[in-house]
Every structure is written in C-alpha cells, then in structure tokens.
C-alpha cells in the first residue's frame, strides 16, 4: 500500500493517484506516462469483433456538455460504452439550468441518481474544478474542456498520437500554430509537452493571438511560418476561436490564411516526415489547406481514433485508483483515515 500523501491537489487522492482529471497542472510525468501506457492496451480491443471490455460494468457515467461538441462527446461516449459503463448524455438545451436551477443543484440532483463519474464541458474556465470540489467523495470528474483553461484529454490523445507515430516525444521539436491566446487545447498541450520533455516547443501566430509573457510557458515564440516551422517534427494547427474573440484581433480570415495557413509550400519548411495534427474541427482554407489536411503527413483522423483509447485509459485508471484506495482503507483504516 502506498504511504498517505498530504495532497493539496484536488485531482489526486490520498495515495497521490488520479481521482479527477481536470488539467495537467500539478501532475507528475508518471501520471501522464501511465495514461499513455494504459491507452496502448486499449488500442487492441478496437480491433476485436466485440469492442468492449467489462471494466466499468455497473458504473454510471454522465456526460454534461454545456457547450457544443461532436468529436469529444462522441469519443467519450464510445470510450464509456467500450468500458461497459452505463452512459447518460444530459441534454443541456432542455436541462434544468435553462429553467433557472443553479449548476450546483443540477450537480447534486444528478449525483442523487447515483452517478459515479461526470464528464464536463463548459464555457467557463474552472467549471470542472468547481464540480470536483462539490461532488461526493466517491464521484469523479473529468474535464472535457473548460473555457480557455484546459482540455487535458485532448492533450493526452495528441501526446499519444505523437508517441505512437514517432516512437517518443523526447527530443522532438513541436510547433503549435494559431490562436494560442484563446486555446485551452494549446495550454494543455504545452504543459504535456513540457512534462514529457519535448526538445523544443514553439508557438507561431500573430501577436494579437499570443498570450502575454509566453516565455513563462517555456515556449519559443515565432510570428512567421517560415522560421517557426523550420526543421520541426510535429506541426499542430489550432482552430481560430472566433466565438471567444472580443474585439478586432484579426483583419480577416483570408488574411490570416495568407499569413498563417498551413499550405504544402509552408509544410515543406518542416522535416520531410513531420506530422500534421489538428484537434478539430478544422476550418479548411482558414488555418489549413485541404491538400495538407487530406495529405500524406496528416494524422488528424488518427488523433480521433486514438482519442477513444486515451479516454478509456483515463477513466479506467481513475476507477482503478478508487478501487485500490478503498481496498487500502479496508485493510489499514488507521493509515488512510
């Protein structure tokens, strides 16, 4: 049994293991590698005739998406069903919060329906942490994207894709291109790449879409594609988050594409075997040219597939940790109290 840690991190249990998955802040590299290693094991069941494993049979998982989502919601739902959990998607458009019920009352009502895990997407940064602070001790919260703050499972599936196709993340040069300022995905990717010791992390974009003091994130900033993409191993394109933009941060989408759109010509600045990634949904002709998005170096659809295995891994690890903690408490009630 692991010694008890005084864990100030809301995401970790008394044994220092994942209890919630809210962001990558405060986690250790071993938490990330555990997710990546476990996800490898879930690649196989996807090739089986019956793509399910019975790990979470009898567990109830509720997907609470207060923001539109196709890819994330669908891959979470598939992952949950492949783990044999009972899944419920809350229809926010007809939910009680629309009728004036507070988020907390909604949460407690859903918890009373014996939910074991909530997967939450919300437009407000910190929403997943808010849920995690208020759920019962046996309930777990996963962040499926909160405002401009974090999207940890997206970052982990990106890390998995890179590791799967490049062998390792260590020693790679990775460029993240576009709207860094508004992107929760970029924040989580930068944290993950730093923790997994990527050789160099670059961000490329116009000054208006780069957050202040970017060097504090441990990244190198570029404002032009030619020097930014020079000799990189991975190019991650970001979607323009026009719905989060206030004020005129860009003259036009056309001009943005002219300066920062990924074309075949610009991709040639990167290494010949560089991967092209995008968290989706892609805006063709805005941040990426169709010839690149559909080209031989694009792994955008593989990212979606790997997202299922990574999300299965996160949920399996969290429920496994809960089981191990409960067992330890049963065996050593004094030590774990």
């Amino acid at each position: 049994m692991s010694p008890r840690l005084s864990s100030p991190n809301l995401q970790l249990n008394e044994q220092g293991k994942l209890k919630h998955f809210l962001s990558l802040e405060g986690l250790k590299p071993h938490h990330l590698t555990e997710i990546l290693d476990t996800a490898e094991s879930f690649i196989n069941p996807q090739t089986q005739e019956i793509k399910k494993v019975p790990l979470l049979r009898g567990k109830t998982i509720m997907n609470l998406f207060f923001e539109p989502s196709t890819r994330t919601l669908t891959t979470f739902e598939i992952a949950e069903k492949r783990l044999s959990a009972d899944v419920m998607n809350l229809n926010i458009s007809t939910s009680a919060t629309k009728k004036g019920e507070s988020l907390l009352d909604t949460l407690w009502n859903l918890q009373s329906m014996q939910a074991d895990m909530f997967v939450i997407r919300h437009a407000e940064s910190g929403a997943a942490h808010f849920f995690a602070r208020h759920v019962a001790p046996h309930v777990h919260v996963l962040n499926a994207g909160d405002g401009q703050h974090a999207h940890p499972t997206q970052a982990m599936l990106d890390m998995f894709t890179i590791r799967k196709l490049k062998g390792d993340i260590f020693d790679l040069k990775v460029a993240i291109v576009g709207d860094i300022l508004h992107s929760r995905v970029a924040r989580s990717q930068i944290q993950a790449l730093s923790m997994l010791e990527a050789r160099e992390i670059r961000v490329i974009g116009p000054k208006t879409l780069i957050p202040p003091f970017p060097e504090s994130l441990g990244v190198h900033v570029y404002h032009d594609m030619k020097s930014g993409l020079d000799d990189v191993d991975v190019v991650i394109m970001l979607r323009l988050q026009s719905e989060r933009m206030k004020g005129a941060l860009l003259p036009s989408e056309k001009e943005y594409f002219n300066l920062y759109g990924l074309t075949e010509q610009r991709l040639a600045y990167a290494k010949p075997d560089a991967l092209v990634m995008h968290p989706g949904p892609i805006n063709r002709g805005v941040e990426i040219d169709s010839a690149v998005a559909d080209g031989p170096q694009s792994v955008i659809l593989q990212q979606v597939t790997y997202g299922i295995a990574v999300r299965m891994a996160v949920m399996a690890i969290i429920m496994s940790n809960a089981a191990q903690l409960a067992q330890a408490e049963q065996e050593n009630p004094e030590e774990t109290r």
Partner: protein
Amino acid sequence: MTPLNQDVSTLIDELCEQIQKHPRFSPQIKMLGIRTGGEWIAQTLHRKLALTEPLGVLDSSFYRDDFSKVGLHPEVQPSVIPWELTDQHLFLVDDVLYTGRTTRAAMNELFDYGRPASITLVTLVDRRGCRELPIQPDITALKLECSQTLKLHGPDPLTLSLIEPAETEL
C-alpha cells in the same frame, strides 16, 4: 522463497508429450500463453512442438473479476492474437492453475475475439483443492496441494519456487 525440487524443463517436456498425444493436436494448432508465466511456458512449448502458427499472448487484466477490489494491473499490456480464432482449436497455456479465475477471465476475453471450436487448458502446475470455479486443466505436469504457493521465475532460466507464507494469487 524456497527453490522447488522440480526441473521446469523436465515438466515442460512432460507437457509436450501430453499435448502431442492429445486428439486435437496437430502442428497447425493455435497456442496462446497467459501473460506472464503462461507466456514463458507457451514460448518454450511452441518451439519444442515446432508449431507453424505464431504464438498468441493474452493479458486478461481488463477481464478480471477483482477489478473493483484491486484495480488495474500496473503493467497491463495489449493481448496479441495474430490469427482469426473463430472455429479454431486453441491450446491455452498458463503456469499455475489455482482458483480458476484467471482462466475464466482469459476465456471471456477469447470469446470477445470470436467463437473458438475448442479450448484445451494446459497448465504447468495444478494447485488442487482451492478451486473456486468449475475449471480443470486438460493437460498438466505437476499436481500440488493448495497450501503450497508457487512462483514461476523466468523467462530464462525458468525456475519454480515455493513461497512461504502462502500468498493469495489467482
């Protein structure tokens, strides 16, 4: 841990003999080892029997019935089943058969891949008297009483040792 006075290679030779006499044996049978000990034994059997089909490896961690108690095995790895198993005769290999729960988990996983024509259970050791499920080996080389807890060390050389006091293992 006390080394067991049993030569593992002799025990494996004994398994080979029994497998070759089995009515379903042919060099084309499909063999799988349960990770980790069963995989080591299956590798040796596969070589000695000169089987023509590649060896499969099962990691049934996702199918264990004690997940809600003990969680995931920390070193879970993907199963490798390099052929279609529907309508095939399988020889499933493990090191020690004790409660029968690992075998049950392995069979559950196999049925998620397809419907085998038959499964023949091969175990190096049968720890008798502690079975919790109606599962028995078809082929075994050593029968021991339940009170004797064994551990297989490997992959090279393969050795067996007795563990005192007895630990619970499936």
